[in-house]
Structure formats: structure tokens, C-alpha cells
């Protein structure tokens, strides 16, 4: 792994900004989220697509996010499918676009299905994390 601190800092910041904006959108569109349903997708195929497109580079293999805010947390409890789709097709901040000609609607549904299956981690208080 390259440690390109300055570029990394910039990337970390913009991804953090993305995270906050995504969070905001998710919160403000909570009602819409209730109404809409994600299309049917295969979690298995979604996992394969997640690895194929190397989403894990920034977001971790279970969507946990990355150190220094490089990639925001995606799961558990992903944002609404509409928000998810909007972010992938026409992303805010520095995330590259995953356009229809390269990532089909079905793949998007599969990716979302994979994220939706991810279970929460144990609470911090139950883990041997440093505490001071």
C-alpha cells in the first residue's frame, strides 16, 4: 500500500465530505425511503460485483468504510436504493461514476442486495478495543 500522505489527506477529506452529504441525503429522504422498494437483486451476485469493481478498496469488503474516512461506511442499513443509485450513477464528491453502459441496473440491484444482507458488528463496548 502506498503511503502518499498529502494526496491521501485530500482524498480522506473529500470522502468524508461525501459521507456527510450522503448521510444528510439519507436522513432527509427518510420518507421517500419508506415508500420505495429496491428491485429484486441477488446478494451473491452483488458480492461478486462488489469485488469485481473493487468497491472494497475504499469501502471495505463488508461496506464498513475505511481508515481516515477514505471511503464512507455503506452497511449495515444502507441508504435508500434511490440514493444509492444516484450516488453510483452521478456521484457527489470524488467517487467515480458507475454508468449504465458499464454497470447494468441489475448489477446495481445485486450490489444493493449484498449491502442489505450485511449484519451489524458487535457494539464497541463489547469488544477488546483500547479505551482510555
Amino acid at each position, binding site marked *: *500500500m*502506498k*503511503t*502518499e*500522505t*498529502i*494526496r*491521501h*489527506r*485530500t*482524498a480522506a*477529506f*473529500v470522502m*468524508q465530505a461525501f459521507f456527510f452529504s450522503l448521510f444528510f441525503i439519507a436522513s432527509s429522504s427518510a420518507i421517500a425511503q419508506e415508500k420505495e422498494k429496491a428491485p429484486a437483486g441477488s446478494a451473491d451476485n452483488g458480492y461478486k460485483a462488489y469485488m*469485481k*469493481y*473493487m468497491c*472494497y*478498496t*475504499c469501502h*471495505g*469488503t*463488508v461496506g*464498513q*468504510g*475505511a*481508515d*481516515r474516512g*477514505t*471511503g464512507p*461506511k455503506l452497511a449495515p442499513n444502507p441508504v435508500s436504493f434511490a440514493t444509492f443509485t444516484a450516488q453510483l450513477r452521478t456521484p457527489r*464528491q*470524488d467517487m*467515480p*461514476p*458507475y*454508468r449504465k453502459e*458499464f*454497470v447494468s441496473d441489475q448489477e446495481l440491484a445485486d450490489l444493493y442486495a449484498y449491502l442489505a444482507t450485511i449484519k451489524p*458488528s*458487535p*457494539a*464497541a463496548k463489547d*469488544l*477488546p*478495543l*483500547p*479505551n*482510555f
Partner: protein
Amino acid sequence: MAKGLDRRSFLKGAALTAAAIGTQIAQAAPAAAAASAEGETQEPRGKDKVIGRPGSDFMVDVIKATGIEYIASNPGSSFRSLHESIVNYGGNKKPEFLTCMHEESSVAMAHGYAKAAGKPMGMLAHGTVGLQHATMAVYNAWCDRVPIMMFAGNFLDADKRRPGVEWYHCVQDPAAIHRDFTKWDDQPVSLQHFAESVMRAYKIAMMPPMGPVLITADGNLAEESVHDEKRLKIPKLTMSIPSQGDSGAVAEAAKLLLAAEHPVILADRAARSQEGMTRLVELAEALNAPVCDIGGRMNFPTTHYLNRTDDKRALVQEADVVLMLEVADPWGQFNSISDPHHEYRRLAKPDVKIVHISVAESLTKSNYQDMQRFMPVDLAIFGDAQTTLPALTERVKSGMSSNQRVAISDRVKKLQTDYRRMKERARAAAAVGWDVTPVSTARMSSHLWNVVKNEEKWCMAVSGMQWNKNLWPAKEYYNFIGSSGGSGVGYGAPAAVGAALANRDKGIFTMTIQNDGDLMYGPGVLWTAAHHKIPILIVMHNNRAYHQEVMHLQKMAGLHNRSMDRAAIGTTIENPNIDFAKLAASLGLHSEGPISDPAKVEPAIQRAYAAVKRGEPALVDVVTQGR
């Protein structure tokens, strides 16, 4: 080689023969070879020449006078006399010769050592090929403002050079290749000149802003006898006192900080010792101003309620006065440019008042752009931050009105609450993905802490991960040594080994989180650690890719309207996967791995820890998440 005719004599003899008979070279060489094969030579035997007091012995006297304890080097003929004098005349003590396998490792070891020891290590290299190998590591040290005493071998007098390789290894101006990113250099032509230049170089290297310096140790000067010893004198080395900022400007800075409702302190290469941290704590407490430790050095305890490093962006946005202390990238604290669209964003308020205490501008050159973007500030104080802090704190305390005292005191509760929230946020983030395979970086960091937490003195030498600073209780200057400076890959392993060497002598337990790509630039430094019995616990952050570059490739594919599914090409380190445990074992280290099961990480680190406590270097290869 035939008895009685060593390689050097043979080459010299062949050259003399060729010069004497001109066009008969082709015939002469085979003849000499035939003669040597029979154990005979046509050349007259040389005198039994002995140089009782070579110039290199005096050079060792000079180096000893500086207090340099180690010289890192890959051996080379252009400094063979100095090498011999170090090990025999000098007794291989202060300085001790450290066998390195690449000059980049030599310099990066010296880089890490200097930050842990608080003084420079020596480095010795060929004036041409050795310095060429060393360049990237020197650039890192330059960007990081770290002192290194580099010595280069060279034979300036062409008349005395052996033909062939020695010409390739000689150069008119050895320092030219480094001059853009070294603080000073010289090529002394006499031993007295050498003595004075070494003392000057040491002083210059150690004066903030510090930096690497380069002295050429001429091979002929080293190999020939000392003439007129009585005339030679090693000058006394007296270090210069770093400068304090102008007292009027300091008073003005105090006024601005006292009047602020939301002051913020940004510290980067501010502290040079524990004293520097103590001084910064005193100032921050006097103002109740949150401190963001940018991390060029260990500036502020992670346990202190005013350490709000993780909240830097929000604090800078809110700030009405920002005090920067030796910040390497001032512009980047207040502005950003998006990637890949290059859109400008202002992060701070337009009317924020900015004070910068720094000596950076006294060490700016033109070619390499390490000076970062120009940042207009309201008050620029030229002075060493650590030296200036007591005066600033005194001005803050003496200039504080009763109203200001109350306002500052009233900030405590909120600051303590915000600090606790920041820490809880970090712990919650670390918990996400706890059981995932490959191992999450937060979990790896936590397990490592659980193993070493009872160490009275510890140092996490090199780690690009924020988890260690977010989750670990660090109160001492030696806990973290900062980053590479220039972000040149290949720094991590040798810098950590150099820091471990300095810490071994101080009784500080040293560990490092080692990136896989970084280690492959110069894995030979692991052998150096084993050979010199340098105890260090190395935990691999083996994510099997240059993950930063994956992201760049994805961004470019998006920008060019192409698919993102080929970003692994040229960016991953798989097929085959590198077995770092085997690699380390072959170089003499205790090692385990690869470990992908998170439950097996802590027991493996525990076993490696036991090996380090026995005085050995040890490596645990953990297969990790990308970041």
C-alpha cells in the same frame, strides 16, 4: 587469483604495461594473465608499503568528535579506507558500522533514527552509484526536515584512479545530484578542511529547520598518510540555539488568541522533544484552545481533552483565529482542490485570522515543490515554534483580562464533552467490520495495543493508519515519530528499524505497522535488523495492493467514461501472493503468517512480542482490509 598477485595489483600492472607499450595492449594483457596463472609476474614486486597513520584515521577522529554513534552503509571501494579505519582504528564503536543492503535503506534508517534519537546518524556511500541509490530517501528526509550526516567516497584526482570501475564511480561534484534537497554540502581537499566542514555540516544539519547534509570524504585523502599532524585541529562543536520569534509579534499573536471565541491550534513539525509537547500543552490549556496534531511530529497527548485531531475539519471551519505551528502545508488546512475535477473549495471562514510560527521559509529552494502552495496569513512569525512557545504562553497569561479568563474557563466543559464524543466515534467506527476477513485495520491495531499495553515505554515508529492515534493513549514524545515527509514509498521499514535502534539504546519498545508494497522496496533492511540484533515488532498491513492507486485508476476510468473493472491491473500485489513470513524467516527474523483469520492475530502478535523481548526482530504477516 594467483598467489602473490592480488586483483588490485594485477589491474594496476596491466594498466601500466598497456600505457608503456601502446598498441601492444592486446598482446600484453593475455601475457600478464598467463604469467599470473602460473603464479609468476613480470612486474617488479612493490615495496612493503605501510601507512601507519592514514588520513581516514583522522577522519574517524573527526566523526567521533561529533558524537555520531552509528554509520549506515553498504560497503564500497571509494570509501574503503574510511570503512577500515572505522572498524579497526575506531574499534567499530561510536560510530559503529551498520551493514545495509541498499543506500536507500541506509538513509531511511538514519531518518527514523534521527527522529527517535534526537541527533543524526552517519551514512556512508559511493559518491556516484551509492548517492544515486540514496536519492529518494534523502528527499524524504529533506521534506521531513530531519538531520542526516551523509559521507560520500570519491577519488577526485584522476591521475590516481584505477582504470575501469573506479572511473565510473568517480564524479567531479558528488553532491550535485542531491543539492536540490540537502541543506549543505562540501568536498574538502585537505584533512583540516574535512574537520572544519564536518563540524559546520553537523551544526547546519541540527539547526531548525533541520536537514540532511553531505560531505565528500576523498579517497586519496583517506588512503594517504597524514602529513603534519601537529597542524591538524578538530574544531570544538558548539550547537546554535534555535531562534525565538520576535517579542512584539509574539505579543500581537497573544492578543489575537485571547480575543478569539473559537481559537484552534494546528501543530505539525512543532515539537522537537518532550519539552516541546509540555510547552504546547501549557499554551493550549492557558487558552482552552483545541489542538489538531497534523502528525509531522508527536505534538500533543492523545489523552488530553484538548486533542481534537479527528475534528480538525469542523474546527477549522468554525475557527475565528488559527495558530499554526510549523505546518508544512498551510494552504491545505484552509482550502482544498477536488480530485479529479480540480474544483477549489474554501474550508475556513473568509475572515479567519491566521498566525503561523515557523522557520520553514529559511529553507526553501526552487526546483522541488515541497514548499507547498503559498498561504497568505495575518501574522507570520519567523522563529522556532518550540523555542517561541514559552514566550507566547507567558504573553497569553499576562495579557488575559478578567472577562477573557472567565470566557476561556467556560469553554472547558464543552471541550471535554466534544473530546469524549470524538473518542466514542472512533471506537464505534473501529467496531464496524470487527469479524471480517481479511482482518480489519482497526482490529489489527487493537490487538497490537492489547499485546504491548503494559510496556512502560513504547514507540509506534511508522504507521499510516489513523487508528493508532485515535485509539491508543499516547502521552510521550517518543510514542510516535511522524511520517516520511516526502511520501516516497520505501521509507517505512528502514525508518522503523532506525528508530528501533535508537530506542533499543533508550529501553523503549518499538513496533511498526508495515505496508506490503513499502517493504518490497527494500526488504534487505530486515536482515540488517537481524544482523545487528535490533529488536522491533513488525506487523504487516498486507492488503496485497497499492490501494491508493486503485482509487486513482477508478477515478480516471470514470473521467474517461470507461469501465472500472480493470483497476486491478498494475495496482494489486497478488498472483502470486507474497509470503512475508517466509521472506522474513529467510532474513533471520522470527515470523508468522499469513494470517487472515482475525481470531488468530493477537496470539501471533503475542508470540512475536515474546521474541522481541528476547532482543530479536519479529514479523507477523496479517492479511488486511484495503485500508
